[in-house]
């Protein structure tokens, strides 16, 4: 991960500030930085989103491709995650430098989506055991400014919301042979329900308190943090501890409560932004990378 050089005094300053619910950039402990979301930024994907969270910049593209369902889940489609850490983000990612982090993030994403409720995988099935949609979710890290996991989860949710999967019909003849037919109306497509797609809320333990959406500097002061994936209804679907330090059960419980509270808020504001954007229709002026 990106590296910041912090002197001992600076660290003390940050820790003490958090103690007083006053962070270096002026936020409170449960405040997120300003999040910018734009969907449909890459035209040749099925769905895409770009999220800027402070200096963290994430681009997610979703590509729908046809494939065969997994043996153990014959009537479901599935998602594949791939995280690419661009060397633009930080020089440490050069060469194979970002691979470890990429795999780690991808694995986390697999874990938070590995349940029945997050995405309706059955709707991705075209014909059981034979055809299903596979959603390739490609995450590109453009810039690292702390709190990667949260930003990525927001971007993935936005991209899935934006995803349009072409509607196909399976034609079957008398012999039971199947053929796929594609509609010639580009608007004739299915949209995924992202109602239950969780977002990750990362809580960094700094001193005796914890903060959400830590900047790089704050992350450097934290010994342990907790990744909690929360749905819009406040259900915790997955939890993971990162960092060298340890957390006592009481603070874990406290942090979960915070995450539920913050997560719900995050979901509502994200949802409203996404719906607002969609209601503008194709006439919306795109900002893209020029904004």
């Amino acid at each position, binding site marked *: 991960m990106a590296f910041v050089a912090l002197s001992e005094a600076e660290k003390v300053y940050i820790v003490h500030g958090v103690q007083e619910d006053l962070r270096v950039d002026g936020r409170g402990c449960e405040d997120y930085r300003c999040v910018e979301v734009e969907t449909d930024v890459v*035209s*040749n*994907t*099925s769905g895409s989103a770009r999220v800027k969270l402070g200096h963290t910049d994430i681009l997610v593209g979703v590509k*729908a*491709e*046809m494939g065969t369902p997994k043996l153990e889940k014959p009537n479901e489609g599935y998602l594949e995650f791939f995280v690419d850490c661009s060397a633009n983000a930080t020089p440490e990612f050069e060469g194979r430098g970002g691979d470890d982090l990429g795999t780690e993030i991808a694995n986390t994403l697999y874990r938070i989506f590995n349940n029945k409720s997050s995405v309706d995988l059955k709707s991705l099935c075209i014909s059981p055991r034979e055809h299903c949609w596979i959603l390739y979710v490609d995450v590109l890290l453009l810039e690292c400014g702390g709190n990667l996991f949260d930003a990525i989860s927001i971007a993935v949710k936005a991209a899935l919301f934006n995803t349009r999967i*072409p509607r*196909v019909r399976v*034609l079957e*003849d008398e*012999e039971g*042979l199947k*053929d*796929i*037919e*594609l509609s*010639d*109306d*580009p*608007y*004739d497509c299915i949209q995924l329900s992202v109602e239950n797609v969780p977002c990750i809320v990362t809580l960094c333990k700094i001193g005796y308190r914890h903060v959400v959406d830590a900047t790089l500097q704050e992350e450097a002061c934290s010994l342990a943090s907790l990744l909690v994936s929360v749905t819009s209804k406040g259900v915790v679907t997955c939890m993971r501890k990162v960092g060298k330090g340890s957390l006592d059960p009481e603070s874990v419980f406290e942090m979960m409560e915070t995450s539920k509270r913050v997560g719900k808020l995050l979901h509502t504001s994200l949802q409203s932004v996404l719906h607002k954007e969609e209601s503008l229709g*194709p006439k919306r002026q795109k900002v893209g990378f020029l904004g």
Partner: protein
Amino acid sequence: MLKSRTFLKKTRAGGVMKIVREHYLRDDIGCGASGCAACGSAHEGPVLEPQPLDRVSSLCPQPHYLLPDTNVLLHQIDVLEDPAIRNVIVLQTVLQEVRNRSAPVYKRIRDVTNNQEKHFYTFTNEHHRETYVEQLQGETSNDRNDRAIRVAAKWYNEHLKKMSAENQLRVIFITNDRKNKEKAIEEGIPAFTCEEYVKSLTANPELIDRLACLSEEGNEIDSGKIIFSEHLPLSKLQQGIKSGAYLQGTFRASRENYLEAIVWVHGDTEDNKEIILQGLKNLNRAIHEDIVAVELLPKNQWVAPSSVVLLDEGQNEDDMEKEEERECILKTAVSEKMLKPTGRVVGIIRRNWRPYCGMLSKSGIKESRRHLFTPADKRIPRIRIETRQASTLEGQRIIVAIDGWPRNSRYPNGHFVKNLGEVGDKETETEVLLLEHDVPHQPFSQAVLSLLPKMPWSITEKDMKNREDLRHLCVCSVDPPGCTDIDDALHCRELENGNLEVGVHIADVSYFIRPGNALDQESARRGTTVYLCEKRIDMVPELLSSNLCSLRSNVDRLAFSCIWEMNHNAEILKTRFTKSVINSKASLTYAEAQMRIDSSTMNDSITTSLRGLNKLAKILKKGRIENGALTLSSPEVRFHMDSETHDPIDLQTKELRETNSMVEEFMLLANISVAKKIHEEFSEHALLRKHPAPPPSNYEILVKAAKSKNLEIKTDTAKALADSLDRADSLTFPYLNTLLRILATRCMMQAVYFCSGMDTDFHHYGLASPIYTHFTSPIRRYADIIVHRLLAVAVGADCTYPELTDKHKLAELCKNLNFRHKMAQYAQRASVAFHTQLFFKSKGIVSEEAYILFVRKNALVVLIPKYGLEGTVFFEEKDKPKPRLTYDDEIPSLKIEDTVFHIFDKVKVKIMLDSSNLQHQKIRMSLVEPQIPGISVPTDTSNMDISEPETKKKKLQK
């Protein structure tokens, strides 16, 4: 302004791909009308006329332009091509749709738009800022295109209104889609159906005939009963073919029997290669050459190919009971063994319709506008057309195109395209046979002619680069009399070391025809020059074929030379190839050359050169024959034409002189040398020619025939065959050898062009050469041009280009060349046959000696040496009692009543022209000697009407 267009596409692997294309809109696209101030200066000059007043339409008296939609373009292209239709706006949307749906129509519309006279304007509405439309939610791409067309039509009307207040120009939208028309009128666009509009053109009533009649889906069901079962949709067919339920193949109708056809199954399945289809319902509206899907019938319904000749004679009506009756005739009792896989057509994969030549069979009902059209090709069903000019078209050769074949119709529907002229007229018949053999014979297009060198042309300094100056050599050409496209010339001289230098100089056509340009494409398409009896259809424009490329005497010409150093035993010591400049000293005919060689008084350099060549040629020929090259024979005839009427007045078999074989020998040598060289240089993509050895079964007939005359023909190798043919001589029957050689020719396979990288067997059987190609006639064969290019690259005289070294492209080219050569041959034969008919028409009925060439079950095929004419003597005729016929397959012989006919027997036949069928006039032969009562005709019937008295006589005898 930038827009992006997004669409989904199914990939071959079954996946779905999203494709995004950038699409720019501009506002500087001109409307194409001259005098339009708003877009007057935009790009190309105006194409539409400012005052399009030539058409007077009762529907729209003001001057107007037409704007047809896609379906009108697709189906009514014949109308649009008519010179009366001008000032038409073709939208880009329409053009693209046409391109996707029918390549031939697209090509035709491109030709029309390129024609300045027609004033067709292509409007790029998809890139115009005001006429571009985006596909809306819930709109199919078809609806979107229809809307785009309407938007463009509306825009045009408003745009023109601005431009010409006093002119009152309008744009009329032509569509056959009822809904689309309604919508257009709602939006205030003047719209008519194609039929309405064409009928309103009171000045051009003949256009109505060219309208394609399209029955609308709606009223198809209720009119008349349904005869045919429905064709399955393409997707179903493809699934069926994949699963093996249906078979895909080419539909080939039978010439003799309109109720029977064969489907050649594609792919390499061993069994069920050929499937028989019998009966109208099973043929299910397939037409000759269509690609169809066939379903096999259960084994108990299999049939054997019937040997009955059935012609579709029913007049107008859809008399199905009668048909069924006729179908019963086909089902003759046959043994189990004869049964062949039988099937029925379930769907059409691709139609291969083309315009057909033929004649109108006028309907019996007076004032009826529907008539049947009988194509010249018997494999094509009769076509129902609608015309008001039936009486003028009667007795004329016409062209008709098929529009469709509804399920309730006995015949396909079509429309009149063109009148070729009177039947039997020489020009008309030539046109017919060119069309029927698919010989491209239109005059060369402007694009092709523009690539010709400007006259006066001369060799420049630049041309001399990489070229040897051989103008000092004593080169001469030897050709048949009257030849204007001289592509070869020869020379021979003694070198200082005592050896001989022989040169073959071939016209350097590849210098003028550069790869890839229009001229090259056109010659590649034509493939070969076609020689008819009195006409030559050139492969390259005349300026090249008869002037610049032709190696005429006493002018400097560019050549490609193949030069050998030989010793006096004709052994090649050195071979070299070079581009050169020559100056032929004499163009001789075969006879003139022969005279020079024979006359001892002439000793000039040309004559000595010829003598040297002749001497070497003899040695070469001997060597070749020792190697097993075949000398075959076919009766070739030449017509003597009347210089005024161009009617044939006499026939003459072609004469062969020593000089013929002299030229031939050196051409063969040059071809072989070049073949070796290009194959050495380009082992993967040399264009070669091979002649496969025929399978032994082909020779059966020849061996049997020889045996009946107590001669033995060995066919193990070419050498054995050549030797045994040489030995097969009979003192009492000198013509026998020629007959055997004619038979041997019939046993041979077709020689074909191929690409060396795609084949392993290069052998040329007839010439007994391990490798062969065509190098010596680039003016009249396209293969030679490619060989020239390959050789030029090999010797470093020219540079290569990508297509030349692409073996798949080359293989494709070979396929076309082989097809064109075959068709050229057929056209040539048809032309000879037509002139033979003309000859006998003028000559009346004659009796001639003939030899039996083949014995068939119910007929004898005879050859009349005097005319080189082959014909069939039938013994079974309609409305006559059948004679007793016994056929013996072992010794080919036929016993008629009590007389036995063997192969090679000498008979006497009467020849006359049978014009009972105007469309298919033919030479009819009947037996005169030996006399068989009731069968043969008396010798002195020359002035009698043939058919009538004969039948009477027959009745008496019975």
